[in-house]
Structures are given as structure tokens and as C-alpha cells.
């Protein structure tokens, strides 16, 4: 599938109807989503024929992109039932078979590293401090091949240090810097749109032996 075609399909997806500010619900635009998944697949072969999880999937844009690029199985996880309803409908519209799980990421019950790749656009931690690192912690426990994630450029050094030292990453690489266009979604937004400098990261987890993880106690 061509990049433009992927971007176009993702552009038709429904987004949050009533975004919840406390969950930092912002749509992952088709421009970023298509490029994230396209890079993951064409540069690193991390998507097609793989098991892919979309953490904090929201309306399911990244998961849908993974399925469109040939992931064998996609699982979308989010805490919010309303978003998952939209994500389910988006998957159905594109005739994609995606399993969705409603759960708080930090208390996800998961067995081992069956998932190959995690893709995510996690909350940045502006509402609940440190939640971006919670997401990364869990992603690096669950993925066996790679984790693709978006984080504010201002946190770059901190993430690089923490990922390798504390979160079980054998490598942490910024693939590129992007401008994340945040639309005027909430009452406290004064401008029509704001561009935030965001890094697209690729983390590789250190391999571990097969075990059942109780992520709630581990966090």
C-alpha cells in the first residue's frame, strides 16, 4: 500500500466526539500515523505478519494503520469505553479484525512477550505526571521486537537515560522530530491550533525469559 493511500484511509476515520481532558485525548492525525507505521514497516519490518499492540489506542488510528500494513493481529488497549466504541466502529468500517481491551495500562494483566511490536501515542503527562513513562514501562515489558512511541522533544534526554537505565530498553533511538498539530479541543485552548515538537522514538526491549507478568505490582 502506498503512503498516500494509507494516509487517505486513516483520514476518513471517526475521532473523539467528547474528548476527555483528564485522559489527554488528542487524535493522532493521519499524517503522523501513516508515517509512523510506514517507517516501522519499511525501515524495520516491524509490522507485517507481526502481532501489534496499540497502547492507549483512543479511536484506533495507529492500530488500524498497522492492520492495513499487514499486521497479522492487532490488539487495541484503552481505558475509555467511549473511545473504544469509536475504535471498534472504525475497525469495522475498514473491515479490519482488531481485538479491543478496556483496561488501565498500568494494571494490564499480560503473559510474556508474545506481542512483537507496540505502537503508541501515549498521553504526554500534562494531566497525570509521569503517565508517559508508565506507558513506556509497560510497552517495553510486553513487546519482543520494538516499541514506537511519540514523546515531547523537551523530554528527549530524560527519556533516553531512563529507558536504557530503568525500563529494560537495549536501545532508544529518535527516528525523527515531528510537529504534532494539536487542534483546539478543550475550553482552556486559546489558539485554534498549536504545534508541539514531538519525537518519534524506536525502542528495542531487552529479551527476557518467558514469564507471566503482573504489571500492576511491577509498576
Amino acid at each position, binding site marked *: 500500500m502506498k503512503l498516500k493511500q494509507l494516509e487517505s484511509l486513516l483520514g476518513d476515520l471517526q475521532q473523539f466526539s467528547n474528548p476527555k481532558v483528564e485522559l489527554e485525548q488528542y487524535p493522532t492525525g493521519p499524517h503522523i500515523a501513516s508515517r509512523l507505521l510506514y517507517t516501522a514497516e519499511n525501515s524495520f519490518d516491524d509490522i507485517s*505478519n507481526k*502481532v501489534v499492540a496499540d497502547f492507549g489506542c483512543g479511536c484506533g488510528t495507529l492500530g488500524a494503520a498497522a492492520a492495513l500494513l499487514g499486521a*497479522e493481529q492487532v490488539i487495541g488497549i484503552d481505558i475509555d469505553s467511549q473511545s473504544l466504541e469509536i*475504535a471498534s466502529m472504525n475497525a469495522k468500517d475498514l473491515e479490519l*479484525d482488531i481485538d479491543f481491551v*478496556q483496561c488501565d495500562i498500568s494494571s494490564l494483566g499480560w503473559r510474556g512477550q508474545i*506481542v512483537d511490536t507496540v505502537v503508541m501515542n501515549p498521553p504526554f503527562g500534562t494531566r497525570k505526571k509521569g503517565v508517559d513513562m508508565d506507558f513506556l514501562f509497560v510497552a517495553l515489558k510486553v513487546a519482543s521486537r520494538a516499541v514506537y512511541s511519540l514523546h515531547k522533544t523537551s523530554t528527549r534526554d530524560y527519556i533516553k537515560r531512563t529507558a536504557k537505565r530503568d525500563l529494560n530498553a537495549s536501545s532508544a533511538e529518535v527516528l525523527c522530530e515531528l510537529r504534532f498539530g494539536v487542534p483546539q479541543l478543550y475550553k482552556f485552548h486559546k489558539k485554534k491550533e498549536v504545534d508541539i515538537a514531538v519525537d518519534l522514538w524506536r525502542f528495542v526491549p531487552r529479551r527476557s525469559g518467558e514469564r*507471566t507478568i503482573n504489571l500492576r505490582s511491577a509498576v
Partner: protein
Amino acid sequence: MRLLTHNMLSSNIKGVTNGFPLRIQVEKVVEKEVEINHDFLRNIFPKIDWKALSDASRIMGYNELPEVPPEPSVLESDIEILRKFHHALLELHLEEGALLCPETGRSFRLIRVFRICFYSRMRFEKMVWCLIRLRFGDYEF
């Protein structure tokens, strides 16, 4: 929900020591054919908990998967076992039902999402789209 997903999920209830596998309470199973991918199956085989998959597929009404996992070398040549593995892992869908924590018995329901839309104003044709999501825990904001 596919059994591949079931093979990854474990109970997240506090205090539970071994929450895997979740027990399946079947209300409705649907079979959806999907193209077989031999390489994918061979790669994922070592990561799958075979007993959990075999037991789950039996509960879903599919009895062809052997209880004892095959040797990895068998998967290289035996297309029939690959087909059965493929069917159990990816083609059986739990459409309605619940997953139960094996220690506490607490149930996690599968929820179907319906959207009824009118196809056109003239014909008022109803299209019912049924979608699945699995719900863990209760959240209120």
C-alpha cells in the same frame, strides 16, 4: 475476540498469583476464515501456551487441535497441523460471552457495540453493525 488474544491476557485482580489462562464462558462463537500464513504460525508457535489454546478451542467447539503440542520440527512439514493451529488461533471468534479470573471467578464481559444507521432517507433501511470489545474493570469519570 480471537484465541491468540486470549493466550496473552491474564487476570489483573490484586492478590491473584496466577491469573492465566482466563476461563472462557461461551455464549456465541463465530468462525471467520482468514488466509493462512505458515511463517507467522511457525514463528509464534514457541510463544503460545499450547494447553491454554487447546483447552480454549475445545470450549469454543473445535476439537481437532491435539492436546499435546507438536514438536517444532513437525510444523515444518505437517501442513495439516498448521491448518488446525491456524484455525484455533485466528479463525475462532468469541462473539458473546465472558472471561473469568481462574482464581476469583470474577467475570470480564465481552461487549458488543451496536450502531444502527439509516441507509438512506428514502428507504429507511437499517444496518446493524456488531462489534466486539473486551472489558476489564469498571471505570467511572
